[in-house]
């Protein structure tokens, strides 16, 4: 079998024997900067705006709902099953479909609708990143197929950056089969290095920070 042949060849090249112990790996390098919440919010918003994402800081639930309502007006939207979206009344807005747990229905709606609405498990302040774990609450396609993605994120979910994310989630695979980091709208520069947004993923992202 190829596995045995490859393993034998690797071990021969490295001068190792089956089951031989390894030396300790370099210690993982995790450095969490000390950034207060106010600065995180500032960094996060600045990073998002630099990426051409729209931001809205909602002082309360009603204003968050109102902002999202202004985006869904007259549109066909698909919301994830995140409890937060129900709590905020976003799931009940006109034109918003919510509560899908079947794959076929999800694919059909996500491919057709104008707008996908999700929450996020975390957000990274320094890079303006949304972190999404796949689950019954968050389907992967909602932040991917529609041309516009709206994410509603409580500010407590705002981490300083990658180091804090991996400190809190040293093994993301334990939690979900998929963790996706989203940093701004889908883009390409493949033709003459001209920046074009919205290639395969959403070309427009709105982040509502609670």
């Amino acid at each position, binding site marked *: *079998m190829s596995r045995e042949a*490859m*393993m034998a*060849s*690797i*071990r021969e*090249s*490295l001068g*190792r024997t*089956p089951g*031989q112990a*390894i*030396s300790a*790996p370099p210690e*993982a*390098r995790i450095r969490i900067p000390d950034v207060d919440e106010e600065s995180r919010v500032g960094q996060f918003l600045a990073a998002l705006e630099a990426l051409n994402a729209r931001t809205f800081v909602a002082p309360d639930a009603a204003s968050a709902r109102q902002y999202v309502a202004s985006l869904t007006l007259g549109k066909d939207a698909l919301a994830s099953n995140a409890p937060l979206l129900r709590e905020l009344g976003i799931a009940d807005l006109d034109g918003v479909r919510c509560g899908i*747990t*079947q*794959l076929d229905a*999800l*694919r059909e709606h996500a*491919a057709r609708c104008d707008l996908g609405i999700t929450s996020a498990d975390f957000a*990274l302040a320094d*890079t303006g990143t949304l972190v999404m774990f*796949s*689950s*019954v609450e968050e*389907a*992967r*396609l909602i932040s*991917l197929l529609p041309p516009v993605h709206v994410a509603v994120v409580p500010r407590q979910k705002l981490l300083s950056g*990658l*180091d804090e994310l*991996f*400190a809190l989630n*040293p*093994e*993301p*695979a334990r939690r*979900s*089969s*998929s*963790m*996706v*980091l*989203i*940093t701004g709208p*889908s*883009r*390409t*520069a*493949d*033709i*003459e*290095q001209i920046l*074009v947004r*919205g*290639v*395969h*993923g959403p070309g427009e992202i709105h982040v509502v920070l609670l």
Partner: protein
Amino acid sequence: MKEITAIQPQLHPALDNPKLQLAIYTATGRLVDKRKGTVAEESLPDYQELRSQANALKRHAIDHLDYYLELFQRNVEANGGKVIWCRDGKEVVDFLLGLAKQRKSKVLVKSKSMTTEEIHLNEHLEEHGLEPVETDLGEYILQLAHEKPYHIVAPALHMTRYEVADIFEEKLKIEREEVPEKQTQIARGILREKFLEADIGVSGANFLVADSGAVVLVENEGNARLSTTAPKVHVAVAGIEKVIPRAQDLATFLKLLGRSGTGQPLTVYTSFLAGPRREGEIDGPEEFYVVLLDNGRTKVLRDADKRQALFCIRCGACLNICPVYRRIGGHNYPWVYSGPIGAILTPQFEGLDKNPWLPHASSLCGACGEVCPVKIEIPRMLLELRADIEAEKAAKGEDKLEKLGFQAWARLMSNPMLYRAASAAGSWVLQDAGDGGWASQLPFFLNAGPTKGWLSQRDLPLPAPKSFRQLWKDRLRQPPSSVPVRQQDATDEGHSA
């Protein structure tokens, strides 16, 4: 020197096309500037520490590759996925053909993967009646044009919007469109259908995470996410060297990869994929395979020093900064990996005798080593490969002329008396050949070999009428103050004999 004529014709196409050269130079220059901005002290103060950490992690993982691949396999299986070991491209093709047959599928969506380029996967699948579709915009354009990637990160770097318009018009039978935004939308529309139609999505892998059994994909367009989410089956094809020990190590690698490649602190999408859809999850593939490809890698591992070429995370920074890549472009390199990293990977994969000129096609400026995020000593590897190549040639008795030349030169340079005699003879022969110490041409009997190469491009300095050692002797005979040290008026250029 036979070698000169053997090499030169290969490099002509890009060198003879000033427009193309300028386009490449400008495009890579932009990437160089962007990278510089994001790794600068004020943006990433611990950049150098991160590079050292990335190097140490890669070295550790590669030196214990058997261990980490086993760990990776166990964890992929624990996540409900499967690992397929393939020694070469044929085994990968056979596996995918079997999978396609079993699932009765014809269309495979593919996200950008240099590893699958290495084994010409698309061509082989097409031969068997399947329809692999590249979904990265640049790769899609190249697939339509039947070209190989020009650049590891920016595959269609050499193409203009007008060439893209030509290709779309001819291959897609659509009305001519020259605006990149609109061209992108055309591709999006066509590829969206393919994503929803395909049963199998094939991706590469930027990292294989051993402690998680996960595949990590880094991209900007969203095509890798779609290829790995929409179809029922996800197959990641990865070189065995892609394994890293822990998920936490991504805190190091992700900070370096986007910055080095495109000057982005993070690319738009980073997918951490650990197996098929789980109970309770709504979407994601039903089946998850990781194909571990050898294709010559275990052979490269044999050299404990030069195996560092396998540390490469394919960011393309060494291509962008390389004055050679920036002049000759990606298609002058013999294999899919171009630029400095290609120059040290290709001979190790394909054999030293196949493209012996490649490691020599460098001015050894060292810029590649300086920007490599995992600190591969590319310039030193080039020197090592040059030595290996010349040793192999000597053993086989090939290309004796250059060897004989250097042997004679070494004798001269280690024998001061001979050296002095030769020096005196040289300046006697050449001193009157030029103007002000420089020649723009030489008599035919001197215009040969390296001299001819030199003179084809620039003027040649001639030996000084008196060498330094002669002048020094003269100087010792008189008080130092009376010796003119700089005769600026003697010539209009100054740095002359």
